[in-house]
């Protein structure tokens, strides 16, 4: 009886396997030959909080603005660009993408706090994000690969182009001209605010006149649904602090 059951089970197993063999596959006419406009917004495909800061910074630096504001912002961005070390504490509404330790912005996600560290050594940019979650996830992009740590121990590593993407987006020549036209700058006392809207998302950068520093950055939803929901907000931006190189190793 057992043998009969086994034979039946094995037959059923094969039937299930058979269900997944494509019987009506689509005809593939893709050529990969023509460059095509990307449908997905780059801000979502970068997969990192650092990219959002980079967008805010890049948008700001490309703006046509009043001279006084321009001086402050350019100086602030110059300070930030030239800083060897940058530390940013932030909160983000996000979900974790599987077991890779990366959180992505998501309207339906929960608030998660994190600390971003950026270190520049020559042409190389190192990134590290420490997530304030129960697993104590940390992700590191050391210029050539992605490293995932849990509670200080490396659990995964693979090649990653993330740092290259960050460098590309920081490259001012890559910023489309229409962003300049779509941005808004205002001055209030010691604060200069740069706002840029894109796809129902408002990016905001606040600069301080006195110390010529980027003080705060945020990403807020502006669409009909979930308007005003904060997706990302910095709590602290600190430059030229001491960050040991070992923080970017596994």
């Amino acid at each position, binding site marked *: 009886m057992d043998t009969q059951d086994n034979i039946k089970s094995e037959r*059923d197993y094969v039937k299930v396997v058979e269900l997944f063999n494509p019987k009506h596959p689509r005809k593939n006419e*893709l050529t*990969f030959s023509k460059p095509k406009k990307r449908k997905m917004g780059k801000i979502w495909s970068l997969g990192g909080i650092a990219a959002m800061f980079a967008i805010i910074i890049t948008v700001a630096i490309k703006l046509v603005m009043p001279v006084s504001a321009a001086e402050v912002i350019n100086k602030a961005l110059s300070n930030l660009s030239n800083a060897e070390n940058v530390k940013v504490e932030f909160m983000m509404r996000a979900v974790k993408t*599987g077991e890779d330790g990366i959180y992505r912005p998501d309207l339906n996600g929960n608030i998660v706090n994190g600390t971003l560290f950026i270190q520049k050594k020559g042409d190389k940019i190192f990134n590290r994000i420490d997530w304030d979650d129960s697993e104590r996830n940390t992700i590191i992009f050391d210029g050539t690969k992605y490293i995932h740590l849990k509670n200080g121990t490396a659990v995964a590593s693979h090649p990653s182009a993330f740092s290259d993407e960050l460098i590309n987006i920081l490259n001012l020549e890559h910023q489309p001209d229409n962003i300049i036209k779509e941005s808004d700058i205002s001055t209030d006392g010691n604060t200069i605010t740069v706002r840029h809207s894109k796809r129902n998302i408002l990016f905001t950068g606040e600069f301080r006149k006195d110390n010529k520093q980027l003080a705060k950055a945020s990403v807020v939803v502006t669409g009909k649904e979930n308007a005003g929901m904060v997706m990302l907000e910095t709590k602290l931006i600190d430059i030229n602090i001491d960050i040991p190189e070992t923080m970017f190793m596994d």
Partner: protein
Amino acid sequence: MMGKNRQQIFELFIAEKDNLFQYASYRLHDIKDVEDVLQNLYEKILSNPERFRNVENKRAYIYRILYNECTNLLRYSAKMDLRSPELFASLDKETLQPENFEEEFMMVNRLLNLLPPEQSEVIRLRHHSNLSFQEIADIMEIPLPTAKGRYRYGIEKIREKLKKLNLL
């Protein structure tokens, strides 16, 4: 005039395009999404041919990016939810004999959504991308027996569910 690196990337994509296309089709359904994701993938690789040249397992690298791109697109778009238990319970023998791609897509995803992602992914890569278990293990960075085990557990789980509905 295409550089040597770019020419090699182009040739790799042409050689792999049917497998990439079917994988994305059975995950995303919308043909425009499929084309966008694959074109984005191609351009992403092409944007840094030097880096790609240094990647040891190029196929694994491409499929990992494709998986992530598809997952992201599904997350941020309001696609129909095929995970509902009611949808599975409403399966019948007719559903299991699809007559076109649309019906087949629905069936495949209703079945695979019963499984945890790590099991459904192995089944997708095996059947829709026509990859060997060794290649799947390389892509998912897991041992070969784990890849085979995930496939077996996934198929078994679906078999048991279908058996309960008297569909086998």
